[in-house]
């Protein structure tokens, strides 16, 4: 690695492409590794704020703070490292707000101090961990004004849903501020992965967020394969793509039903949940698990399909398209439903750009980023598909992105099955050696980043995963402002952010 020359702290924001050119080398996983000094670190943080590149992830590993950055226009990606000095580093959040929660979480877990961070509150540490000093209670941000009242909701919600606390400040029915407090399902994933053999860590990765189990397994496997120089056979790559798109289909269909249900149109939820059940049963029959947990592993996949399996998937796609077409028509022709979704929960396009929000949240607000397209990884480098975008950025737009992506996923699966050639589905591991790898894949809710570092004996020295929801939750808080409390379920469901994937 190359250490860049000292730059003055007052220089302009540093472009990522310049920094990568100075570092010269891009690794096999597509990421350049850059050793930064303080000035470059701050320059890149300010560059994120100026929109020169996107902040992808920020984590602590081995006495370093590391930052993943990318610029889809320049087609460049990097992992920038800065050595902690007395456990501290210059805060990225001071310059670029999307880093705030990441920095708060890392301080709670590793004690790394982001110097100058404008929000000192704890995030994952709720003051109840055994053997930790207890801090006084959590302070929600103050809201001043006449006639305001607060509505506390959760962490145990009224539905069958993950736990989190929402603090609404409302003026009558109109929401003045929403603040979400998460961390309730913090399960210590990074600590559990530390020292674990690759197979055990793969099972952990598959359970980061149950609804993105294929996507997490995919990203983890890619990262491990990059670290070890492990080649995946083409048939394994294609089956991974088929599974990832099936997962996207099942959740997009389920979400459309769920949003309609939150507007009291239960018939569409029933329809969508029937389609979803059809998908899950097909997945169970072909890949041995309704959600395809542990089906994607480093080196390839664990189950093959024969010609009848491929035919079963094609038949499933036809049933989905017929059934879902009727749902779309019903949605499009229900004024009472449209009335609830149009103009509701608008996520500001400026915030979407600033937070580099991915998935249907980003694309509904004009941000066309899709990891499958931007940094085409196998098997997406071999298929043609569209990345739908909208400008309205409301609940309706987020529904329509899902609807359009369902058609694209079906088209991708058909192309992939058409390219399925005979051959092995998994390769044996190469000799284990120390190494590091990272991967960025597209889960159903957005881009998903995983970085791993592997030690001599093939054990995980460190694993970090960053869900798309880290950069979507804050936007939900902004999108509800000015809406009525009763529209929160619609806004929330149209975002469908992960709790488990963020709390980790």
């Amino acid at each position: 690695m190359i250490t860049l020359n000292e730059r003055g702290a007052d220089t302009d924001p540093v472009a990522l492409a310049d920094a990568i050119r100075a570092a010269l080398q891009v690794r096999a996983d597509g990421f350049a590794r850059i050793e930064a000094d303080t000035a470059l670190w701050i320059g890149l943080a300010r560059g994120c704020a100026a929109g020169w590149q996107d902040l992808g992830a920020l984590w602590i590993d081995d006495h370093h703070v590391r930052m993943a950055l990318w610029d889809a226009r320049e087609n460049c990606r990097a992992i920038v490292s800065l050595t902690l000095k007395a456990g501290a580093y210059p805060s990225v959040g001071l310059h670029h707000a999307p880093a705030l929660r990441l920095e708060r979480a890392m301080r709670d877990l590793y004690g790394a101090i982001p110097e100058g961070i404008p929000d000192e509150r704890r995030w994952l540490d709720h003051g109840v961990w055994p053997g930790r000093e207890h801090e006084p209670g959590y302070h929600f941000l103050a809201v001043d004004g006449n006639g305001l009242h607060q509505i506390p909701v959760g962490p145990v919600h009224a539905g069958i849903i993950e736990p989190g606390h929402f603090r609404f400040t409302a003026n009558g029915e109109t929401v003045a501020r929403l603040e979400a407090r998460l961390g309730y399902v913090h399960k210590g994933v990074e600590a559990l992965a530390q020292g674990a053999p690759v197979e055990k860590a793969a099972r952990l990765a598959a359970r980061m967020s149950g609804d993105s189990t294929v996507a997490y397994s995919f990203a983890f496997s890619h990262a491990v394969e990059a670290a070890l120089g492990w080649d995946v056979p083409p048939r394994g790559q294609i089956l991974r793509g088929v599974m990832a798109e099936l997962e996207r289909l099942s959740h997009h269909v389920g979400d459309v039903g769920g949003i309609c249900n939150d507007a009291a149109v239960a018939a569409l939820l029933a329809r969508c949940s029937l389609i979803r059940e059809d998908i899950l049963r097909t997945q169970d029959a072909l890949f041995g698990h309704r959600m395809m947990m542990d089906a994607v592993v480093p080196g390839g996949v664990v189950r093959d399909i024969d010609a009848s399996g491929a035919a079963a998937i094609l038949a499933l796609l036809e049933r989905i398209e017929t059934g879902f077409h009727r749902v779309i028509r019903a949605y499009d022709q229900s004024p009472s439903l449209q009335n609830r979704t149009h103009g509701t929960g608008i996520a500001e396009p400026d915030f979407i750009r600033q937070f580099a929000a991915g998935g249907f949240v980003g694309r509904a607000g004009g941000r066309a980023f899709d990891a499958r397209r931007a940094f085409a990884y196998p098997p997406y480098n071999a298929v043609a598909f569209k990345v739908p975008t909208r400008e309205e950025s409301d609940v309706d737009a987020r529904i329509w992105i899902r609807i359009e992506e369902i058609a694209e996923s079906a088209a991708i699966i058909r192309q992939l099955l058409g390219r399925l050639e005979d051959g092995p589905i998994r390769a044996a591991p190469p000799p284990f050696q120390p190494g590091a790898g990272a991967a960025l894949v597209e889960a159903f809710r957005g881009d998903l980043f995983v970085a791993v570092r592997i030690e001599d004996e093939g054990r995980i020295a460190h694993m970090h995963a960053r869900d798309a929801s880290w950069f979507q939750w804050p936007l939900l808080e902004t999108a509800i402002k000015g809406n009525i409390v009763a529209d929160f379920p619609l806004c929330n469901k149209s975002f469908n952010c992960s709790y488990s994937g963020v709390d980790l």
Partner: protein
Amino acid sequence: MHILLLDALLKGPATERAPSPDEAAVADLARALGTRARARLGRSLAIREVDAGSCNACELEIHALGNPVYDVERFGLKFVASPRHADVLLVTGAVSWNMREGLERTYAATPDPKWVVAAGDCAAGCGVYSESHACAGAVAKIVPVDLVIPGCPPTPTDLLKGLLALVEGATRSPR
């Protein structure tokens, strides 16, 4: 919308026949529940779901119980919004320390007689998070558990078998 309604009329219900309840669990529950249940509950149970540190896979399958294929409400099993309305707490997850108080308070808010079902391997204490420093472990370490439904995640059929065992166990309990 009218096409969907017509479709439903012509094709008939999508609902499948019920699985038989897990007989071993029924016998265990009948013993465990004693006389508490029969008089108070009849054949209907109100369930409050609590995620105490799951990865959300269990929640997705519990959700599926409500779809027209499993149609859980036909058995008198109903998911309710508040522990104040519940007979049963259906708990998932490895009970993160951050959710322990939430689970305890939900349990305390549930009126007697009440039952706790631990759903999924994490709740049973054998999931991938069971050794985590951030988790208390099995649900049974925090609140008394009457029935465990293992699986990662348990399928809707597993869940239905377990919950039907609970209804059967409650109604077959000895005087």
